[in-house]
């Protein structure tokens, strides 16, 4: 083996998954994935917020399966990191009662180039929607008991596009 065939030392991929009731700060999370690294050329982030659905909702309440949520999301995140050759990936999902305008979910994907960062974030979000054990319940502004949010066919289709592409 010659020195030329030795690949450059690869920095470890940083995969962080947190399930928490508290809020997150997107700048802090991006900073944690980029500080001290010179191999990150692209950062794509997605933040999901609570909507009031035309003034109808006072909050969304997120229930989760504590044991499984972190494990399921970590498995998906590690798959995304490998598949898109990311340099780092952070996924945070909140639980509990969240008022309109509040943060629910954050995905930050870092890579050397932009397409990988975009794809990594989109892939993880599509899997979040269908495979992460979280459920949303509506709380109504008029005080009435809200409904559980129904799963959408569109979310299953969004996930399926990653399967057909690979």
């Amino acid at each position, binding site marked *: 083996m010659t020195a030329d065939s030795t690949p450059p030392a690869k920095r470890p991929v940083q995969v962080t998954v947190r399930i928490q009731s508290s809020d997150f700060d997107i700048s802090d999370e991006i900073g944690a994935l980029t500080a001290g690294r010179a191999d990150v050329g692209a950062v794509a982030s997605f933040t999901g917020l609570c909507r009031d659905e035309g003034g109808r909702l006072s909050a969304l309440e997120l229930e989760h399966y504590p044991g499984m949520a972190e494990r399921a999301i970590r498995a998906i995140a590690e798959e995304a990191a490998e598949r898109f050759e990311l340099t780092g990936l952070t996924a945070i999902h909140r639980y509990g009662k969240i008022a309109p305008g509040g943060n629910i979910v954050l995905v930050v994907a870092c890579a050397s180039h932009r397409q990988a960062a975009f794809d990594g974030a989109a892939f993880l979000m599509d899997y979040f929607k269908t495979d*992460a054990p979280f459920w949303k319940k509506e709380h109504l502004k008029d005080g009435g008991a809200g409904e559980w949010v*129904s799963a959408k066919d569109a979310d299953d289709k969004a996930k399926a596009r990653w399967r057909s592409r690979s």
Partner: protein
Amino acid sequence: MSLKVVYFAWVRERIGKGSEELELPESVVTVGDLIAHLATLGEEYAAAFEVPQVIRAAIDEEHAGHDEAIGNAREIALFPPMTGG
């Protein structure tokens, strides 16, 4: 066979509890068998499992289909389609 079964979202609300330890008859082999068995345990269970095909399951915290065998699982979770993100 004794098994911990946990419920989430409207499955939990309809049954009226988040988890329970159950003794299962020998005839219960798969996740689908478990759902069919639970549906016979009373009105609240019948309501939760009214449309069995929409129910999602996890065996020991891993997603599982209705035809999967329960085997020596410690915990089975039953819940509606997920709506996170």
